[in-house]
């Protein structure tokens, strides 16, 4: 594992535990707010995408007909990852909040702890690799 991979793997759970410890800061403090917002807006999504990344990349993305800029496709993929990081995080926050409120077990700390544990568990998971496409006889190409 390269240092970069280690950072990508460890940063989301670190953000979650940091947000949990930020609960000790005074109500309404800027540092506390920054830690919460940063984790809730990106942490869970980043952890999920790290696991799914290779499998997701197996499906080729549709792009423009003109192919003048060789970096265009790569930049679009990066933009897509950024969007999914944020949107999956937001979606998971909505889901976690709803599950707790619907089961009469709502507390903000529980929502944050659940997302942090989920993110931490995701950091220990291996990356999901899609099986290679099969030929008619079932052998790998």
């Amino acid at each position: 594992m390269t240092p970069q991979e280690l950072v990508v793997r460890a940063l989301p759970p670190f953000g979650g535990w940091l947000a949990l410890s930020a609960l000790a800061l005074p109500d309404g403090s800027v540092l506390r707010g920054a830690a919460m917002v940063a984790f809730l807006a990106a942490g869970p999504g980043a952890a999920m995408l790290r696991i799914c990344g290779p499998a997701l990349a197996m499906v080729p993305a549709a792009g423009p007909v003109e192919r003048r800029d060789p970096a265009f496709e790569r930049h679009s993929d990066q933009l897509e990852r950024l969007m999914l990081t944020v949107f999956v995080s937001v979606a998971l926050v909505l889901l976690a909040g709803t599950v707790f409120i619907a089961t009469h077990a709502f507390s903000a700390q529980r929502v944050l702890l659940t997302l942090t544990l989920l993110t931490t568990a995701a950091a220990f998971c291996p990356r999901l690799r899609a099986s290679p496409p099969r030929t008619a006889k079932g052998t790998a190409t």
Partner: protein
Amino acid sequence: MSDLSDLPPGRPWWHAASHPAPALLVALALWGWAMTHTDVSDLDDFGLVTALHPTFWAGLALLTVGFWATLRGPRRHPAWAPAYVVGLLVMERATQAVLYPTPLYAWAWKHDAVVDHLLTAGRLENADAIGDMAVYDQWPGFFAAQAALVRLLGVDSAAQFMAWWPLVCGLMLLLPLLLLYRTFTEDRRLIWTGVWIFCVANWVGQDYFSPQSVAFALHLGVLAVVLRRYGRPGQSAVRQRQAVWTVLLTVLVVAVVISHQLTPGMLIVSLAALFLTRRYRDKVPLVTTVVIFLAWCLTAALPFLSAALPDMIRSIGDIGGNVSTGYGATPTGTGAVTTSWVARLLSASVLLLAVVGVLRQPVLRHRAMPLLLIAAAPLPMLGASSYGSEMIFRVLMFMLPGAAFFAAAALLPQVRTLTAMERTSRTEPRLYGWLPLLALLAGTLAFVPSYSGKDRISYFPPAEVDLVRQVVDQAPDASLVVAADRNYPLAFADYWRVDHYWFLDDDREHVDAIVHDPAATLARDMSAVESPGRAYLLFSRGQFADSEMNGLLTKGQLDRIRQSVDASPLFERVAGNDAGVAYVLKETGR
């Protein structure tokens, strides 16, 4: 020692001014100056338009010119266009947050009350406990997340951060919007002009603190993923790999479905429209969305839907009724009429430009056909429901991502096929320098009256918030708060223990009875409140502004009602300041 001839040729002094940085920085500086020199304490019928310091307009114009110049400069770094768009979002969506000391929009305050309810109750409740407001507990996603956020930030309520929601929402929307456009073109001028047009034409104002703001962004995110990853004919191997994408898609769709009623419907019609094309004939996204939507509707949302179903069925096909904005939404007065027409003109211009773009760009029309379908897909919803007289605005908003792309195409030189480009090397006509710039300038400046022209209705000064807070705080459980209409802050505060009645919502005959004999009629209406509850009557400047500017009662009529109550022995004044006054119905008045 080098020869002087080795040095690059000298550049004229004005070269530095043509760099993107000075225009952006000066525009933002002008905006900053305007923010410190604008007084919002006495808004007139034009809202923020006439209150803004002139430097705001200069900054906005400079920003637009700078943006256009940046796009046309072929050697400009690609980061400048996004920098300008972020600058635009700041000037468009952060201005109100900076200028007003309290959050805008009665509906945003209502959503704050829903968050407050979840925090107080700690669970979802049905109509038996909270009446009509139970509808929010049946789509709780956004509110549950905000309830968690309020506690995690350690603030008293969402009112402390919701003024900034439009900016957050605008930034969020940029991501899927860019991805959508980048799926069909590499031309950064087209992409960023489309984004710019979307930002300035999106005046409908659904970006306030609301479930639809988040659901709309997620909706665009789902469409972007489908267009990029489900656009190939479904071979079994590809389908196998798409399973992971479908899991991600499911997470996003579930978040949309649990948060908002209308957005899943819009998503389904958009996915269905795509499914009709050969390129996107993959049923997985459509079926997934329909199944999740139905599952939610038939379980958690069933109480609301079963009650609302007869009305929903009646409104199907009634396009005239569905697009009418209804009683109490007729702009009245020079300011309201003018700003409404500017908004309509802005939307009509963008749609017209989009039609022009579709007609004069056959290559793009073919390549970006899915975007055209996405733009047209929401139209049938006009025949499906009135959505509380708001359907026409919602349809407009959902059409906008596709429409803005083709509107941008109308402002730019014709897109040609690769072969045609190799055969001819046409230079860009001069027309494409000035006309599009003027169109962008007009649209950008028109955004302000469209979005902020009714701020006299939407803004509630701190005194008005204090007044309502005083009433709610002193109201015992099971009390009733009566007001002219619901356009005031905290109108839904504590709705689980305090009931509300807005007499302008009643039928016209009863409103006329109140105008004819105010104190006695209102006292009769309020007399059914049982002890220990009390019945309060509240008049505040937000109600007056809304009633006057939307063609309900005139200021004279409302003043007469207030004076009648003030002079009546049935009522006692309990609070008041320069933003309004509150009375309580005396025990002897029952």
